[in-house]
Each structure stands twice: as structure tokens, then as C-alpha cells.
């Protein structure tokens, strides 16, 4: 069909006024982690019995060993920034439907006692101090609900 036959090209919008909500099962490991966040403001990891790697957040299986992990380990609240960025490009958060407020800094922190990393917002009074290798401490929210958002941020110390 030629361009002359189609003077107007349409795009049809989806989901007018619709909302589709998901309910994700956290499972035993993440539930224990989220309950410790909520009730004790603590971060619980888990140790691999085969290679001693400590995963925080915890999970059932160590990927390289394919071994089931059972030993809980408390980690943090201090840690080190392993990688980070400050996001300037706005986008619509698919979890909230709201445009994320930018700029914001986030990155992955290795909490003291952990081998894996944990992602969250990074905050510092002087933003130039948010860089790889900087020491941070977890800042918990006062009102906690058993959600990753119970960690407000990692604050550079």
C-alpha cells in the first residue's frame, strides 16, 4: 500500500484506566530477610556451606556451587560502594506509573561481612563523595513494612 493511500498513521494506546497488580511470593529466604528488616532493622544474609560466600540479600541456592544454603549471617550496617551512578534521564517507573524523580544516585554496596552486593539509593551531603570505594552506612526508615524500601538509602560516612 502506498503512502498516498494512507495519509494518517495511527498509534493505538493500551490500558486506558486499567491497572494490573502482581503479588510476588518472597519465599522463605527473602521473607526472613524482609521480616528482619521490618522488625529489627537488620540485614540478614546466608552463607554457602560449600564455598563460604555470603549472599546478602539471601537466596536458597549459591549459583556456582548449586548448593542449598541454610546458615543465616547478619551483615552490615556499614559497607563499601562497589559501583555507582547518578541518573539524570527520567523514565516512568513501571512499578508505580510515576516518573522517577531525577537526578538520583544509586549503586551497589558490599555490606561488611557479605560477598554479594545490594542495590539502593546513595546519599551524601557532598554528592562528589559518592564514588567507588566510599564507606557507607545503612539508613533505615522509621516506618517499615517488610519491603526493600525499608532501607531508605546508603549514606556516605
Amino acid at each position, binding site marked *: 500500500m502506498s503512502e498516498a493511500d494512507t495519509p494518517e498513521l495511527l498509534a493505538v494506546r493500551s490500558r486506558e484506566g486499567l491497572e494490573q497488580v502482581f503479588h510476588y511470593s518472597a519465599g522463605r529466604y527473602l521473607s526472613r530477610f524482609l521480616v528482619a528488616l521490618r522488625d529489627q532493622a537488620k540485614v540478614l544474609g546466608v552463607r554457602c556451606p560449600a564455598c563460604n560466600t555470603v549472599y546478602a540479600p539471601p537466596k536458597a541456592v549459591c549459583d556456582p556451587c548449586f548448593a542449598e544454603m541454610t546458615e543465616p549471617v547478619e551483615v552490615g550496617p556499614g559497607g563499601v560502594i562497589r559501583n555507582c551512578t547518578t541518573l539524570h534521564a527520567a523514565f516512568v517507573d513501571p512499578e508505580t506509573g510515576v516518573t522517577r524523580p531525577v537526578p538520583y544516585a544509586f549503586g551497589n554496596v558490599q555490606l561488611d561481612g557479605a560477598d554479594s552486593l545490594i*542495590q539502593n539509593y546513595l546519599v551524601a551531603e557532598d554528592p562528589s563523595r559518592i564514588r567507588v570505594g566510599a564507606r557507607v552506612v545503612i539508613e533505615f526508615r522509621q516506618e517499615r513494612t517488610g519491603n526493600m524500601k525499608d532501607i531508605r538509602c546508603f549514606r556516605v560516612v
Partner: protein
Amino acid sequence: MGKRAAIVGTGQTDHKSIRRDVNGQELIHEAVTRALEDAEMTIDDIDGVVIGNMDHFEGINYVDCWSIDGSGGYLKPVMKLCTGGTTGTTLAIGGYNMVASGMFEKLLVIGWEKNSESDTTGAIVTATDPILDRGVMAGALAGLAIEASEYAAAYGVTPRDAARVSVRDRGNACNNPHAHLQKAVTLEEVLNSPLISDPLRLLDMCPRTDGACAVIYAGESCAEKICPQPAWVVAATNRHTYSRFSDIKGQTGMVSLSRAAEELWQKTGIREPLKEIDVVELYQPYSWGGLKWMEDLSFCGRGEAPKLVWDGVTDMEGECPFNPSGGVISTNPIGATGLIRCAEIALQIQGKAGKHQVPDVRLGLATGFGGCFWSDCILYSKKKPE
């Protein structure tokens, strides 16, 4: 080892930001028609179809069925493969495996994406762990920015080093009629473009593209009858590592790409990739990947890539040109992007790359990147493997 298999035809759409003139099926049809024309075949010659995209970009979850009139899969065996960013190279590896198994002789492999139909960053966020990663994660932009932050801290690599890669690829794209963005840029333009996720600037980053790519694989019994110069698969490798971003212990070296490359070089007997490989189409969604991932592929040692790139080793006239097509930072219909790498290597081997042809290509490498830093490698050869 399986039977030998080769690419005997390729087709790409006219890649653009928004192809409002076609829906998804029609976009796929455009690439399929061009691949069939290139191989001088008809859809009746095809005995199976493999198709893939990242379904959360379009929100259509049964693409293998939905795309039938575009793919030509009506009453044929059809299957879908999706592995996120690596979808295109997974298609190329899966299609190769099917033909090398001897179960299929002439297989149509299709990758496509209509990135204009949703918010790409938002859609990528939905590919991450819903409980642990989605709260702060910000798609490929930020995921790659944090990789760059580690690499820069470890080796003192600068945004100016990365910008040199962008200048190379965006210049190359001007010679590729299929490239989405065909505008050469200077170092200063890259370094002064808007900051999108520190240290990445707009011109360090790939675009979002509407586009499709189709390739036809043929088995050793018919490849040379269909095509005077098939692009033979020598070997294909891939590695997946972590399931979620919070598992990643660090990306100073991308372990999946290092391991996939290590197996590729071991399988093919290649000792010095920089000298032995004639052209590379690197799945490089951002300029910094054009440095760090050369090192993960063992084209040079850790921290040595910037010097090679500044010295012009990876330019069109260099010892081993990278991304003569303009690469991913010029064209990025995500589910097609990896397959375009393979199609472009096939064009180079066949001598059909036109203005972006590298002379005398015997061996060409295509790679794929995606997921939680997952990697695919496929080596193609002019010579039929022994």
C-alpha cells in the same frame, strides 16, 4: 560435533526511531522478504522458523503465533526464543544448533523489536527481580553506567577514552544504509552531550529503534547450492551468570564474556584474536563497552583497550575493525540487535557490505550482551570448517 551450517541470506528493515507505517508483523515481513530475496529462495523452501524479541517491550506474549503472517510460519514448525538483550545472538546460536543437528536444512531465523511502542527503560526494569532490584534500578542506562564506574575506578579510563569509541562507530554508521543514526560526531560533541547517567552521556549510548533482521541458515548439504559464499559457523559459545543484579559481585571483569570467549578461542584454536580475527561486530550498547569488553574478549590485556582504540587499531583501516556497521550505538532494535551483528558478519564474509566492507574478511566475530551481564560469542568463517 554436529553438521556444518552457514548463513546463506540476510535481510534487514529500514531501521528508524518510529516505524509508524508498519505494525510488528509487517516490520517482520519486511526483513523476511529481504532475506528470502537475498538467498533467492521462497517461503516454500523454508522448513522451520525461529523468532524472538523481548516481549515486555511490546507487551505481546505469544509472538511466535501472533507474527505468523509476517514470519511466513503458517503451517510450519515455529518456535520462540527470548533471553533479553542476548535474544538476537541466542536466535543465531539456537538456529545454528537446529541446523547443525541435522533436524532442519533451511531455517529462517528472525529477531525484531518495536522499541517505540513502550518506555524502554521502564520495560527493562520489569525484567529484573521484582522484590530486590526494581526499586532503584534504571534499565540499561544505569546498569551500564555502574559497570563503567567500576572500570574507570580500576584502570583510570576516562570519558574521553570512551568518546573515541563513539566517534568511531557513529562515523562508520554513515556508510551503512540500514543504520538508524547516520551522523558523524566529534569527541567534543560526545563529551558535551547531555549527561544521562554519570559517566554516560547521550552520545555514549545506543538509541531505541524499530527494526527487524532475518537470516537464513542452511545445512552443509545445500548451503553452497543456495549461495556462492556461505558464512560458515565455526563455533558458538555462551555463558549466563547471575539471576539478579544484587548477586553481581562486580564487573571490573565481565566473567560471562571472558568465559564464553575463553571457550571460543579454545574450540577454534585461536591464540591471538586481535591478529587472527578480521572483523568484529561487538554487541556494544554503550561506548565504554567498546573498551572494557575488548579486554574481556582477550583482544588485549586489562586496561589496555583505550590505547588500541586511540591508535586506530579498531578503525576501518586498522588491524581489526570493530563495528563497521556503526554498531549498536547507531542501531538498536533490541531483539534484533544480536542477530544484526551476525548478519553484518555474514555480509562482510560474503563481500556484500558495500561502503562499510572490510577487505579480505576470512574470520568474523559476532557477540551478544544482555540480562545480568550475560554473553554470547559466534565465530563465522569464509572457509568451510574441516
